[in-house]
Each structure stands twice: as C-alpha cells, then as structure tokens.
C-alpha cells in the first residue's frame, strides 16, 4: 500500500471515530504539477487527499487560523519535517496546544515520498536532529555562496535590485506559519514604524524587519519564497539569519515544543559578540 493510501485510511479512521475533527492535507491542483491545501471533515472525502512529491506547501500555518483549535478538538495535518518544526515553535510560543495536533509526517527525497513515524510532535525529534546535523541542499548552497562572496556593496546592490521588485502584497507574511500576529508591525501606525508605501525605503524596511522577526524562528520551509509573486529569493535571507543564530547561540529553530525562543531567553554563556 502506498503512503498516500495508508494516510487516506488513517484519515478515514480518525475522522469516523471522531478522534480528529479535520484533516488538513493536499488535494488536486489546477495543473497536474500543482497541489492545493485541502480541508477534509468527512470520512467520505478522504479519497481527495493526495500525497506525492508535489506536496510542498507547509500547511502548519492553517493550524493557527482564528477559532480552529478553540474548541479543544484535535486536528490532523500533513507535514514535512519543516512543518513539524513549525508546530514546535507555535507550541513553544503558546500559539497552540501541541496535544491537539495529530501529525501525518512525510518527507520527500528525489521524487520519493517517505512516511515519518509518529503522531505527536515530540516523536519526531530524531528527524529534526538529523536535519540540524545534515548538510544544506546543494542547489541552495550555490546561490548562497555566491552572495556570501560578494563585497558588502555588491551584496547591497543585489538586494536593492531584488527588493525593488517588492509590491508589498505581504504574500510572504501571509504564507508564513511564524507570521501569526493579529496585527503586524506594518499595520500599526501609532507610531508608523514602517512606511506602508512600496518604494525603495518602504520595501527595505519591510523585508529587513521581517528577516529580524524570523531570526531564530524560521524553519526554512520556503513558503515565503514560493508565495512571492515577484520571485524575491527570500529563503536566502532567512537561511543566513538561521546560520547566524545557530553559530551564535547553537539554536536550531523548532527542535522541541519546549524550546525557548532564542531572542526571548538568556543564558549566562550566550555569545555577547555584539557588545563592543
């Protein structure tokens, strides 16, 4: 039996028995290569669930939709390891109760889908640890290295050109499971921290502030990068911040549901290189 079939069967069992009220998974998209988020509440609909290498979107952001978990019922969700890390952070930041989340874990290597064993977030700690220790994917490394090698001026021009494309649609924010604030800093105007206009200054302010808000929190699922309609390589910024935080504080975002947020906790032996 394929993993897709196994998970359909499991979804059917959970929904019929009332163990979960909803399964958030993937369904058929507009084109053969597209999958779209799917919300299944009836056991009769589980056949619509799909699982293959095109299931890329990190669905964990839907878990913090207003009111979804407020009835304390359980919700099942298809997640890759990055999504599982995101659930850990959401739990650590008190945005959800991890007990309410039933995980249909999977990973993709090449175009092969593997099931990840476990139901609750804490059962995936080995998987997460192995990602922390594993090497970054080669193709990403290449562009990343290219930017690292640039002089500060070259790097500035590179990002200037990229941010010039930004139209402030906030798809990056809306697609990000970590951007759960009910009122984002860009929507606050007393004081107006960030210009709402999509001009060079406003675009820089927005993208840099977002990078800072995600440092030590980003799980590098790539939702922002894929959502961006003007294709700004946002993953590179977040990856750089993640490396920085890992180097400075040995903090890898989303290790466990009790992991303290790196910028909201203090250890005596924390690196203090920023204090001159």
């Amino acid at each position, binding site marked *: 039996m394929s993993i897709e079939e196994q998970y359909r069967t499991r979804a059917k069992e959970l929904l019929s028995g009332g163990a979960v009220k909803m399964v958030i998974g993937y369904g058929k998209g507009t084109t053969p290569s597209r999958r*779209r*988020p799917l919300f299944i509440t009836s056991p009769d609909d589980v056949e619509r669930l799909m699982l293959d290498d095109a299931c890329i979107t990190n669905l964990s952001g839907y878990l913090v939709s207003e009111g979804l978990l407020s009835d304390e019922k359980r919700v099942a969700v298809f997640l890759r390891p990055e999504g599982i890390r995101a659930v850990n952070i959401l739990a650590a930041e008190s945005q959800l109760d991890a007990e309410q989340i039933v995980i249909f874990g999977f990973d993709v290597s090449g175009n092969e889908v593997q099931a990840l064993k476990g139901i609750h977030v804490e059962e995936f700690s080995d998987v997460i640890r192995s990602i922390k220790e594993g090497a970054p994917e080669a193709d990403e490394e290449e562009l990343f290295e290219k930017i690292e090698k640039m002089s500060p001026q070259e790097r500035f021009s590179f990002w200037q050109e*990229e941010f010039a494309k930004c139209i*402030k649609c906030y798809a990056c924010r*809306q697609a990000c499971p970590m951007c759960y604030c009910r009122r984002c800093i860009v*929507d606050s105007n007393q004081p107006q921290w960030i210009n709402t*206009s*999509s001009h060079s200054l406003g675009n820089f302010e927005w993208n840099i502030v977002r990078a800072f808000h995600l440092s030590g929190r980003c799980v590098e699922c790539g939702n922002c990068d894929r959502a961006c*309609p003007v294709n700004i390589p946002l993953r590179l910024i977040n990856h750089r911040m993640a490396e920085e935080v890992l180097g400075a504080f040995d903090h890898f975002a989303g290790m466990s549901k009790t992991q303290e947020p790196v910028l909201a906790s203090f250890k005596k032996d924390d690196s203090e290189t920023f204090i001159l």
Partner: protein
Amino acid sequence: MTKILFSDKLDKCVERWKSAGLTVIGPVQRTNISTYAAVDHAAELEFGLVLPDRSIKDLFFPQSEPMLRYTIKKESINTEECLPPAGPRIIFGARPCDASGMAIDDPLFGWDYKDEYWFQRRNESVIVTIACTKADDFCMCTSLEMSPDSTKGSDILLRPLAGNKGWQVDELTDRGREAFRTIADFLHESSEPLAPSAVVENKFDLDACVTWLKNPENFESRFWKEISMRCIGCASCTYLCPTCHCFDIQDEGDTYTGIRRKNWDSCSFALFTMHTSGHNPRSTQSARWRQRIMHKFNYFPGKFSVNSCSGCGRCSRQCPVDMGITETLQEISKLSL
C-alpha cells in the same frame, strides 16, 4: 493586402519612436521576473512570454504614487501637486487582456471625479497589442467574452505572422495611426500567412455565474466559506490583477515636509475596511473573497456595464495556495446547473 511590420525592422522603429520623443515600453524578462519596462533596443523585448508576470496596470496606476508635497511653515501650509512625469509613451507588445484591463478601468477613474493621474498617463500612451499565439492553463479571456485577439483598449493590434517573421498591423485608433505614421517607411504592404491564434478553452459559464451572484440569497451561501478556506489573505491576486484599482492614501514625512501618496491597497486585507471602533464589516477572509468576486462580476458591471476582469488569469497563476477567479467561477457554474 495589409500593412506588415517585419521583426527585423522593429529596432529601427524603436529608434524612430525614441527620436520622436516617445518612451518605448515593452515586455522584458528580468532576473526571475517578467514585466513591462522601458527599452532602448528591440532586442531587449521578449515576445515569447504567454504574458508578463506583472501587468500593464503598473504603467498607469503605479504601486506607490506621490500625489502632493507639503511644506508647513509657521503661518502657512504650501502644497504642490505631483502629477505624473509627462511624456508620450508607446507600449509595444501588450497582451490583449492587459490592454482591455485599462479600458475596463477608464469609467471607474472617470466616474464623477476624473482621476488626473490615471488619465494623464492614459492620454499619453499608445498601446500596441500583440495577439496571443500561445496560452497556458490559466488563461481565461474566452470565458469573459474576450479572445486572444481582442482589440479592446488597444490602439494598434498586431497579429503575429507565421514563423515569427513579424506582424500584420491593424490600426484601431487615431492615436495608433499617428504613432505608426512615424514608422510608415518601415511597414510593407503585402499579405503574409498568420500564425495560428492561441486556443483558450472556455472555463466557465459567465452568464450563469452573474445570475447566481446577483441573487441576494447567495450572498450568505456556505459556498463562500468553503471556496475561500485556504485563502491566506495576501494581496498577490489583487496586485497582479490588471483591473484591481483599490488604493490607500498615506502621508509620509515629518511635521514640516513630506509627501501624500496613493498606494495600492487590497480587499484581501482585514484592515482595508476596519472601522476606528474596531467593527469590521468584512471581518472574515470569506467575506473578503466574496467582496472581490462580487465587485468584479456584480457591483462593477452594475455601475459601468463591464465586468472588472479581463481574463489574464494572473490571480490563479500566482496564487500561493492555488485559488483564483477561475476556480471560483467554475464552482459557481456548477452550483447554477
């Protein structure tokens, strides 16, 4: 016999238009994004795209536009209106859906109060449209009473010749004829075989959808919640849309000097309609998606007798969660059966 513009003459035309004082704008492929931008040479133009990622709207209604500058002194306030930089332009190689999008928005910007920012740019632009020879899964012009060679909003329609040799020239307006008079010596009179037009399948029953949308009972239908459940509430569909025209007005600067700007805004955002009291008429994402569809296919045509959609399909093509107008209208078509 018709007028023909051969591709190899285009660079000369660009040069001629430029020396006549026109800014030449067309589809270009930049790093990871295709858009319409000013060019110096024909070689920079990219005609192989189904359509650019960014719409032509940006050229008439930019994402952030200064409206006025203010300077405050002790006893007086000085303001200076910032009209768009003047100068005639030729947009060479627009797609029919993009060109018609501009014509769709004309009555809105001209309704009662005439928006000078829009009309100055409209009046200074010649739109030369190239009919489509290819389409993708998201194109839907034919479902909206348009076609890959619609002339709406265009000053010139170019029909591609077979073998990428050039274009057959259909002059549609005086403004178009005038722009092509300056390059008359580069045009040929002959008849050439045309490349086959793109095939865009009909995706939904527009009439049935409009009837369904107009029925007040359907305003409260469960359908809206179901169809928009996965909407993440970003503005990529509205900002890439050639006809979405909503905006915000924002002041930037300090107490003494600054700029009042008109910025794109979107019905997808909760803040768009939020009252000061905290009451929000459209407090859920489903209410906001319903507003977008109702606005395009019910309210807007009710006022201006035209749907506020030109069928470019960018909303669906770029949606991070694979939503869009096409799917919604397809589902409504099914409901109306």
